[in-house]
């Protein structure tokens, strides 16, 4: 992918990511998140990670965000009220974030691997899905199974915390 496209998609992601936070209307926030996810998916595809990119679109931009929008509309959430901003705290937060940014830029400036073009990966004879599946079920089998337990606990929690009381 030409560097120009990288910058386009990265900027798209960042701008709409900020829009998610800044927007007061929940629907607008959710839609901004969709665009941000699409930019991320494009970046994944530019790295030849087609499967991850497509899953990003299907699962996050598709299923999860549709669910978000449904809930926002069903609950008929009003636009967020204008809050009193504590400017001192905001300035402090921005200051810390800027320091972190400068630090990261400095480290990238020193980082050798960031300044050289790495040779392209050898063309894989198998497709992405096969590669990821093989890794998940061979080397990374143990973490994969623990994620199963994690999902079980999350399910219990959701059922328990979202249930309605009998009247």
């Amino acid at each position, binding site marked *: 992918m030409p560097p120009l496209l990288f910058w386009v998609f990265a900027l798209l992601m960042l701008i709409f990511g900020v829009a998610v936070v800044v927007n007061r209307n929940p629907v607008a926030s959710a839609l901004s998140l969709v665009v941000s996810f699409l930019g991320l998916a494009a970046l994944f595809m530019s790295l030849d990670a087609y499967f991850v990119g497509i899953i990003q679109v299907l699962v996050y931009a598709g299923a999860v965000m549709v669910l978000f929008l449904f809930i926002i509309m069903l609950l008929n959430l009003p636009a967020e009220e204008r809050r009193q901003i504590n400017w001192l705290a905001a300035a402090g937060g921005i200051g810390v974030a800027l320091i972190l940014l400068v*630090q*990261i830029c400095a*480290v990238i400036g*020193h*980082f*050798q*691997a960031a300044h050289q073009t790495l040779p392209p990966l050898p063309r894989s004879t198998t497709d992405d899905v096969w590669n990821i599946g093989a890794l998940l079920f061979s*080397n*990374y089998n*143990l*973490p994969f199974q*623990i*994620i199963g*337990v*994690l999902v*079980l*606990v*999350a399910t*219990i*929690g959701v059922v*328990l*915390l979202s*249930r309605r*009381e*009998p009247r």
Partner: protein
Amino acid sequence: MITAPQLEIAVLLLGMAILMFEAFATRVDKRVLAFAAIVGLALILIASFFVSPTPSPDRATGLWNFYTADKLSVFFKQFALLTTIFVLIMMIDYAPVVRASFPGTTDGLGEFFSVPIFTCVGLMYLVSAVDFIFIFVSLELVTVSFYVLVSFTRKNPVTLEAGVKYLVLSALSTAFLVYGIAWIFGATGQTNLQRITEALANPNTDHSAALLGVVLVLVALGFKIAAVPFQIWVPDVYQGAPTPVTAYLSVGSKAAGFVVLLRVLRPFVTLPQMQRLLVLIALLTLIYGNLAALPQGNLKRLLAYSSIAHSGYLLIGVVCLDGNAVVFYLAAYFLMTLLSFAVLVIVAQQTGEQISDFDGLAKRSPFLAFAMLIGMVSLAGVPFTAGFLGKFFIFYAAILQRQIALVVIGVITVGCGFYYYLKVVRAMYWQPANKAEDIPISGLSRLAISALIAATIWLGVYPQPILNMLKR
């Protein structure tokens, strides 16, 4: 012969069995489930003593890429099992409160007893983890189950606030963890801690990038162990969460956080930059935790600040890279914190969580007052208790390493600690009681509290068994 991975599988099966039983046996008193869980965990605890610690093979493959069964991890598996058993005993005492928040049904209680078992699995995996992928997955298992437990009695607005705060801030800290892991992976090309150490020895590896990654990981772990400046969530969450869950958070979650911290920092801790950073964090944590605890009137909040303060002492041990001192301190901290919370669970249901609610406890229940006394003097670090020896080993390690600033500030803050811990003792023994009636204690709680009192004093007088266990 039992191998270490079988322990987690056994706990996992126990958790699922209890969950299934909960779902299908609707007429049974749910407290039976807690007793079953306690018995099951106790059996697994006994089995864990027959596990021989085996370090993972050098060029590990498969399971041993992620998992180690060294003596540290086996010790902390037992630690996690014991913590869960004591938390379940507290949860039985706490059951009326949970029941009140699910009116009209018998639901909720069964899950309240089974989720901690899954947390225990997460803790047991976490202390064995030697790969960042595995650390992340097991840390998430622990965190997600704590999301559920912290906001369990969601009818109470304070609990709901605690739950939301814990969810948002914990998710933020997870983001830092993942970002840090990405940097480390980018710099070294490895996720296994052993191979990261090897890659760092290679002069071609970019150290500044790896250091940035470790600092970001430190942010996430600092959140787990409640180190300043990542402690903002602690007082509110500790106060709002159901009391047994608070005890679990402050003992289980913190101990696992320190084990991971010891493992992750090992390749980096000798670097001078890392030393300076850790000393700074330890100093801030000591000063903040102890000073902020001084004016507290709510005992749960006081214990929250005390938990921050104890992280400071533990961090001194981490700076000196004295694993044994840290482990001994954690064992002592486990005893005295669980002791205080066990008394708090019982007394809070009768009167309240304020320190003034403990007025005259010595008259109403001499046993509970004595238990609280031992807990408090041990937390403060009075000689002949486990807490004193814990602090002694930590300061001894710091003196050997010539960390004079840490020792001086540490000793001064211990003095601060005496003031606020003994405030509770004063309320119990020197204030007139508001109410006269006795406080009932169940037999199981009496047994558990007696065991904790005995262990706190025993470890303070004769610490050899634990020390030998660590040396072996």
